């Protein structure tokens, strides 16, 4: 069924060419699947030369229209490759991101790559929407109180170096550039900030659940809500952000309904996947240790890097609440998969491959 009929107030026409960067990624491949489901077949998938395309090819193989999807191999750090990607597109879903540990690497692959792509898009006519996929990592919870609501108006991290989060830094700078291009060059953008995206294909536990070390997992707090979003639900929100009219310049957080706490998530995970040792630490103790670690790191001039610090502790383990109200009100989004079913699907992947990678992080 054409999207115009499925999505009210859509800016997209049936023949519009849609570019998806990071299309072979965890979220990207699901996004392609949903676009194909909606009947959009004029897709251009931009993938890195190193990408193993198995995930994407599997999705494309499930649709007749998948055979006509255009694959463009390239590097967004190359302006020439960006021009190839941008030519003739109406809607862009920009999911490619820098996952490097170094700040410079994350900056290059998130911010510079985005700048190159936006420059290439400005050289062409006909862009209707640039959907920039960001992350919850851009928020700072440091000054929020326990129980406060994290929504789109919350303060952004102002000291990413102290937070020691290269990924978050890259995303912050990427967003800054997108906003700048929006105001200076009238780039029609929307920013989407997913929370903790989970689902089949992602096996490792997020640091928000716990920190794996010395063969066991330390869970700080445990009663904090995880900003979970199942990959199908997240991809649906991103798709809608590309089509809905009258939302240029808006920001949308993506979290599901019926969120679980860290303790609840870990309990289900251990029960269904594999039992392993874990200890729970109250938030005040975790915060205190992070504070000591941070001070020692500073005093020793980085003999220990500030991997644990107050900013990270607050961002990942403080008991804050999350809202998807704006997503529902403005995009008409509702979760495709309820939380209970989503958990089932997530955990089912371990039954098939039979191993746990819980202590990876």
């Amino acid at each position, binding site marked *: 069924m054409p999207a115009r009929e499925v999505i009210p107030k859509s800016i997209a026409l049936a023949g519009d060419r849609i570019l998806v960067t990071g299309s072979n990624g965890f979220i990207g491949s699901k996004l392609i699947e949903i676009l194909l489901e909606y009947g959009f077949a004029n897709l251009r998938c931009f993938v890195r030369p190193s990408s193993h395309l198995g995930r994407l090819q599997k999705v494309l193989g499930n649709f007749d229209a998948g055979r006509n999807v255009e694959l463009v191999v390239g590097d967004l750090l190359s302006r020439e490759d960006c021009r190839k990607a941008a030519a003739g597109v109406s809607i862009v879903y920009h999911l490619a991101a820098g996952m490097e540990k170094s700040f410079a690497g994350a900056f*290059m692959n998130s911010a510079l790559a985005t700048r190159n792509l936006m420059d290439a898009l400005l050289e062409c006519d006909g862009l209707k929407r640039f959907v920039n996929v960001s992350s919850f990592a851009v928020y700072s919870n440091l000054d929020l109180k326990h129980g406060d609501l994290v929504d789109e108006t919350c303060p952004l991290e102002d000291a990413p170096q102290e937070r020691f989060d290269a990924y978050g830094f890259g995303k912050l700078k990427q967003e800054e550039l997108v906003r700048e291009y929006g105001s200076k060059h009238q780039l029609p953008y929307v920013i989407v900030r997913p929370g903790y995206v989970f689902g089949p294909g992602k096996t490792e536990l997020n640091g928000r659940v716990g920190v794996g070390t010395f063969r066991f997992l330390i869970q700080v707090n445990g009663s904090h809500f995880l900003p979970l979003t199942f990959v199908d639900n997240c991809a649906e929100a991103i798709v809608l952000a590309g089509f809905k009219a009258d939302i240029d310049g808006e920001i949308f957080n993506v979290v599901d309904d019926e969120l679980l706490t860290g303790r609840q998530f870990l309990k289900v995970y251990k029960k269904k996947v594999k039992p392993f040792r874990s200890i729970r630490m109250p938030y005040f103790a975790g915060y205190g240790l992070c504070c000591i670690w941070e001070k020692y790191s500073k005093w020793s*001039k980085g*003999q220990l890097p500030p991997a644990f610090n107050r900013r990270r502790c607050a961002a990942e383990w403080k008991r804050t609440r999350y809202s998807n109200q704006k997503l529902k009100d403005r995009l008409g989004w509702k979760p495709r998969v309820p939380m209970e079913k989503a958990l089932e699907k997530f955990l089912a992947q371990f039954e098939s491959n039979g191993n746990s990678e819980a202590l990876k992080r």
Partner: protein
Amino acid sequence: MLRIAIVGCGKVADQHVQAIHRIPGCKIVALCDRELLLAKQLGERFGIAACFCELSKMLEVARPDIVHITTPPQSHCSLAKQCLESGINVYLEKPFTITAQEAESVVELAERRGLKLTVGHNYQFTLEMLEMRRLLKEGFLGGRPSHLESYWSYDLADLRYASAFLSNRAHWVRQLPGQLFHNLISHGIAKLAEFLDEVVEIIATAYQSDHLRSLGLEDVLDELRVLIRDKQGTTAFFCFSTQVKGLNLLRAYGPSGSISANILTGSLIRSPSRSYKSYLTYFIPPLRNASQHFGNARRNIANFLRRRLYQDFGMKELTERFYNSVRLGDKPPISYSEIISTARIMDEIFAQIYPSRTTDDRRRKTGTDHRLEMVREVSAPLLTSDF
């Protein structure tokens, strides 16, 4: 107060900034990158306001005393010369230049202008390497080293680091004459070059690991073995591996014993050539080794408590020594003959393992078949010391 500037604000620039911040009496006054945003992100994180995208502009406005060049190696030679021509001392990241010919021209210019140069072989200035150098100077080996071994490993398994150049043929690492080796082996080769006289023979062999083959990278080699001999008869073995994990070692053998520095574990083991009666030969040397390992652990713990065991100690030490040589007019911490020798050894290795790449590259640069010239010299080892 020494005024410092950094050209090239990519991944390694962070390490330079952190090392410089540990050194008293200096200040980073400017950053430069062809991509201005990259300079600005570094400046923002470390509180450095002056950011430029043109080197000439930066040199003119910021007037630094020393420039750290941390760009891809293809630009090292021209950027270093531009700084030297402007009367500024230069710290060049490794590899020093692309070819020995370029290295010689940069060194010649620095000497002519009375300026100082160094190269980022920071692993030669770790605590255990400093101790090893002291012991060698004191004559622990009982003479010149008769044999040296240098092992260097690099883990390609974590593709978050390696995918950037493995996946992209246009990446600057893939464009180097020696590809992956060119960017990585100079640390290990320089350790040998420091103790070798003029090299007269080099035999290099390289191949591709199964891991790299599984990634489908047909044209990249990642396992390298090299035999070297100098004109005094000292031999050396160099091993670079992506498959043998956690190997970063220098071992020197001499008439009175051997000494081994392991940079990954921060340890130094001395093995005097001494014989013991009967079964004592099975008891005493292992106990002596155990005692030395214990001593290494104790020393590392003490250094940790004294905040001296940080990751970039070698870089800070090298940088500080270089700054002192600029301040006081002393010799630079790494001799120019060692820099050139390292470059010549690397040239010859790449000529042997990548004959088509290096020949083409040198033809483009010099208009001659330089590789054949080198092979001729090396194949007549005892007749020439000009290599």
